């Protein structure tokens, strides 16, 4: 997508103005909900319920942010979202790490050490990325209960590794498929072993795909709601579940400004990744859809 513009479609002035107008209105459509959320998260509640959502804050306050982070009622405890934010971090970091390593090794095996039926095995792993997760909820809940991991971060790590390894394998397989196999064979003749070849030859040139894979897994796992809600709804809940509890269950006055601050807090890590490494994010999306 970064390739230079070369097309030579000629457009008249009227058409061009229309195109710019359309693009700008669209940009507004995408920006507005988030912008309004941000704007209203720094207003006192009274200004929201009584006032105009588009109006600039008359009183600028970070009270809602403080409340969302550390004092708001989430479920039964007035803990704010902070503990759940850390739950998510504790879940995401190991899950991303493990699924990426497994994906890299799988991709390496599936492209450079091919064996009979390897495409079928890959197909099985690939299909597992697209199943509706409702089909595994019941047995997963049972198994996590039996091994004593339900409601815990460890259980969620397991779940996300299991259902994330298909995608990470896909990324590395497609990436390593373009890597010259002759180099691997030459190293083999020189006496290099399986792990040596991986470590010395493939890994050093895997930087971009590692970034793509880490970003994809991070975004997906951080944003997951279904598994979090099904297997860890109590104090072990991840951020998305806690945010939903905060927004839905508030009895009495709805503290919209706190909800917005909480929503932005929940969006912040993935948004940050997107802003810092958007290019890789797009590549990951494309690789996950157009299996080129």
């Amino acid at each position, binding site marked *: 997508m970064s390739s230079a513009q070369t097309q*030579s479609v000629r457009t008249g002035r009227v058409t061009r103005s229309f195109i710019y107008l359309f*693009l700008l209105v669209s940009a507004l459509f*995408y920006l507005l909900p988030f912008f309004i959320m941000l704007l209203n998260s720094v207003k006192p509640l009274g200004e929201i319920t009584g006032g*105009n959502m588009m109006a600039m804050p008359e009183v600028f306050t970070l009270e809602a942010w403080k409340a969302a982070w550390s004092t708001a009622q989430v479920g039964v405890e007035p803990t704010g979202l902070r503990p759940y934010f850390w739950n998510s971090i504790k879940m995401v970091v190991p899950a991303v790490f493990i699924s990426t390593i497994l994906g890299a090794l799988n991709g390496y095996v599936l492209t450079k050490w091919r064996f009979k039926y390897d495409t079928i095995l890959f197909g*099985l792993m690939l299909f597992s990325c697209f199943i509706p997760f409702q089909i595994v909820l019941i047995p997963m809940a049972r198994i996590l209960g039996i091994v004593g991991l339900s409601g815990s971060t460890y259980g969620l790590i397991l779940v996300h590794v299991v259902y994330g390894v298909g995608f990470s394998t896909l990324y590395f397989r497609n990436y390593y498929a373009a890597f010259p196999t002759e180099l691997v064979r030459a190293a083999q003749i020189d006496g290099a072993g399986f792990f040596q070849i991986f470590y010395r030859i493939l890994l050093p040139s895997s930087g971009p795909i590692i970034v793509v894979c880490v970003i994809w897994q991070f975004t997906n796992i951080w944003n997951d709601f279904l598994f979090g809600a*099904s297997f860890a709804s109590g104090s072990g809940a991840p951020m998305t579940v806690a945010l939903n509890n905060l927004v839905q269950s508030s009895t009495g006055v709805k503290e919209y400004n706190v909800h917005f601050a909480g929503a932005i807090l929940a969006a912040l890590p993935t948004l940050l990744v997107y802003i810092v490494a958007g290019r890789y*994010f797009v590549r990951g999306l494309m690789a996950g859809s157009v299996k080129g």
Partner: protein
Amino acid sequence: MIRQGEVDFRTRLQNWIPKVVLSPSLAMVLVFVYGFIFFTIYLSFTDSRILPSFGLVGMENYSKLWRLSHWTTSLTNLGIFAFFYITVCTALGLALAIFLDQKIRGEGVLRPIYLYPMALSFIVTGTAWKWFLDPGIGLEHTMHLWGWTSFKFDWIKNRDFAIYTIVLAAVWQTSGFVMAMFLAGLRGIDNEIMKAAQIDGASNWNLYRRIVIPLLRPAFLSAFVILAHLAIKSYDLVIALTGGGPGRATELPATFMYSYTFTRNQMGIGASSAVIMLMTIAAIMVPYLYAELKEKS
């Protein structure tokens, strides 16, 4: 002789290592995906209620399922949702991509703006839109304050229109992604073809209608497959935006499955609905993945 044996052992070991390395992932997928799928299929033929039970009841769950108005309503909702979600996302994504492809100043700024919602959780999207669409405080209220007092936008509270608010929020979240797919497709089109058509005197409209859009067929197919499977899996957004309501107006198969299995304690029926969801997705994904894999190898 001894040396020969060593080499043999080493070679044999080297032959085994790749398979050993692959096996943990493979075992995980076989057990946690395919094993679980079979377990759920099995459960769908049993009288499981609050816990899995193993008394077989044949097709009873399925016949019960199809008699439930709750289920048929969620299927109808899914049909409406999927149709508008896929059509609007594709149309908007295509328009944005074609327009962005006209040597637009500031493309580098616009593209990330269109795409950023894709990085958000559906729960965040739902929280934002729920409030934006709430007539008492969101858009309608604001329009009233600005003096347009007859302005009415209460879809989220209206049984007949609530499903379209889900479409709206879902389009907001994923149309940028479709735009990126089409843009990649457009940038991959051979420039010579475009030039030849222009020399032949084709208007822009005809150029796109007759040449460019047909050339984007692979992107259309990918977009359709991805959007269809996202639509069938939609769960988070409904929970965050409407919770399935008002009434059952935005109930989808995914929310149906969850509530029957975990809150209504009808696990057998929940399992059978999950099986139907899986079959629908498989009908779309398997041929697509098969074609993709075959093309590759």
